[in-house]
């Protein structure tokens, strides 16, 4: 019984357990640290991946848009340059162009008398554009009333053809035209050679535009 009693006094001997418990705790801490560190690393990699993916998607969209824009530019820019050359965006210069063309044509076709009258510039809403959309350009319409004293109707046609020739961009149109005999049918024109027999009044419409201020490029 003594044998049992002496042994029972020491309930738990920690000495043989100290090192394994210490190692277990160290191992546990290492394990937790390893898992935590790797998890943290993984989370960071995932975040980096998602961030890059988002950047790529964003850039992809911008690039697609840019490609589309480039396609538009490729097809539209030459025409824009042509329009610019013809002062399509400069109403004042365009008006001077018209006067210059008319004067040249009068001399070429030998129109005895040609008077012009520029109307006011009016904003033009094109139905192809949605009114709500903020278009990048505003269109305008102007009228020129031309009064011609001509020998025969071909002179008017020559004038129209001439205007078409000068204005290679067909950005004008005739609204109306009226040819009136100046003298009765019995008028002996043979006795008055070179005298204009017809009076023509034509209303011509021409278009111009104004670019809205340039937005910041994306």
């Amino acid at each position: 019984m003594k044998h049992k009693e002496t042994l029972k006094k020491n309930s738990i001997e920690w000495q043989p357990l100290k090192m394994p418990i210490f190692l277990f705790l160290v191992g546990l801490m290492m394990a937790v640290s390893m898992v935590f560190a790797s998890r943290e690393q993984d989370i960071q990699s995932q975040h980096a991946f998602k961030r890059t993916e988002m950047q790529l998607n964003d850039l992809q969209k911008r690039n697609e848009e840019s490609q589309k824009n480039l396609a538009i530019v490729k097809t539209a820019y030459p025409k824009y340059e042509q329009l610019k050359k013809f002062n399509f965006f400069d109403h004042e210069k365009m008006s001077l162009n018209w006067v210059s063309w008319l004067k040249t044509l009068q001399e070429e076709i030998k129109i005895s008398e040609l008077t012009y009258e520029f109307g006011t510039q009016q904003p033009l809403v094109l139905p192809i554009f949605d009114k709500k959309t903020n278009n990048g350009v505003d269109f305008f319409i102007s009228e020129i009333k031309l009064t011609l004293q001509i020998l025969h109707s071909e002179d008017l046609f020559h004038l129209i053809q001439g205007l078409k020739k000068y204005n290679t961009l067909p950005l004008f149109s005739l609204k109306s035209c009226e040819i009136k005999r100046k003298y009765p049918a019995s008028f002996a024109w043979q006795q008055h050679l070179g005298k204009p027999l017809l009076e023509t009044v034509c209303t011509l419409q021409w278009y111009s535009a104004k670019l809205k201020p340039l937005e910041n490029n994306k």
Partner: protein
Amino acid sequence: MKTHPLIYFSDTQLIIYQIVDKSVLEVQRFSTDEQGQVAFEKWLPISSLQAWYQPISIVVDSRQEEYFWERVPHVSIHDRKELLQLRCRRCFPNTPYSFAYIQGKSPQLETTRLEDQALCIGLPQPDSLQLFVTILLKNKIAIRGIYSLPLLVESITSYLPTARYTLLITHTEPLNQHQPFALKQIFLIQNQLILSRWISFPQQEVSFSTFLMEEIHKTRQYLLGINVLSHEHSLNVLIFSEQTYLNEIENIKKNISTGITIQSFNAAKWIVQQGIRKSPPIIYFYSLIFQQLVKKSPSNHYAKPFELRYFKYFKLRQMLQLSTAVILIMSSLFAGYIMLKSYETEQQTQQLEEKLANMNTLYQQTKALQPVDIDVLALKDTVDGTNWLSRRQRFPIQSFSIISEYLVDFPQLSLEKLSWSYKEEVSQSIGGENSNSKIQQLLQAKRKEAGLDESKFLDIVMLEGKILPFNGNAEQALETIRNFEQHLKKNKHIKDIKELVLPLNLSPTNTVKGNLTHSNTQTKEAPFSLEITLNIP
């Protein structure tokens, strides 16, 4: 290779063996008297027992071990432990080293109550064993368990020939130098221990075979006496001995009485057949028991919980070490897996970054190609708008030409005034006026977006003139005009002709007067005015 220490404890000796794989090697031998205890106590700290880092098993092979084979009431497992403890205390009131277990159901059912067959074994004089155990515990040696050697025989019965009643006879460690030859008899019923006997052989007096037969008969008589063996059944005697005695045994087999069957084995050869490579002499048979004990780790027989405390620490240490290893391995694997995943993600990110860099270069290049003086939207709107305006360009030349072609054939029609204008006829939307369905709206929007004009232009030419010469013949004048109209209508571009003014200019609202006597003087002129609508594409 692991070395398992084992103590063979008999009444006079304590032998330390080491079991390495399938070899049993003797390490040290001590007597169980005071001298032996002192020597053991001195030897233990310098021994290699602790260096093996393995718990020690104590196998008791004592003459004093007693066996009580009795029936106990059949109770639930929960109560069985308590019942067996009570039986042990009753059978062995003065020793801590006792053990009881249920061998199965009792074969004799005398009452209606179910009964189990239990075996209680114990060491009535535990002092010597206790002293050695105390020395081991003082040296903090983990004791796996204290086992009864005869009871351990049950674990090797699968190696023995099968029989209902088996009497196993083998050589055992001698008691002392004066009695150098001893035998051990172990009786089993259906491979379960009933009792064991230790026999000392007086070599000088009789021959081995005669002595052996006498002891077999004695044991048989005893077994018959205590009713564990019946006359109807044969006692299967298995003798494990040395080659020198086997010849004698073969001789006595011829004169054997009924009720006994003898089988003899060369113990040294037999254990080699069972896979034991090396064994100390005499205890060949025990070597197999020791090897099986180390291999199978059966439940402890005699050791008390406080004696197993260092074994518990050992197990706890093992568990902690194993847990540490498992935790580290698992966490390493898990961390490795996550790191691998992370590495793959990093690789993917790198690929994406490369893609991003390439795309960025492409984007910058594309962007550089875009004009700086105009916004792309404005550019598109400008071009779309000008295209739309271009399609609406109208001129009178074609309409005038068509009409001129026909006027050549009608010189009587003298023109005074020719005017041209156009009107826009908006074509009906697809699906009629009530085309409010989403599909139709969408189609129209698409057409609009594509710049397809919904409008149709009609040229309007007004011809104003007179019929020359007229000569007052209004009918002819009207006919001329109507002929002209009919000719004109043949042209596919002519859509409509309206007569605005005709020579007589009759209308339901005006009155007409005339003098039929002087018909030529009725009207001097025959004016006309026509509105011609042309559809010039």
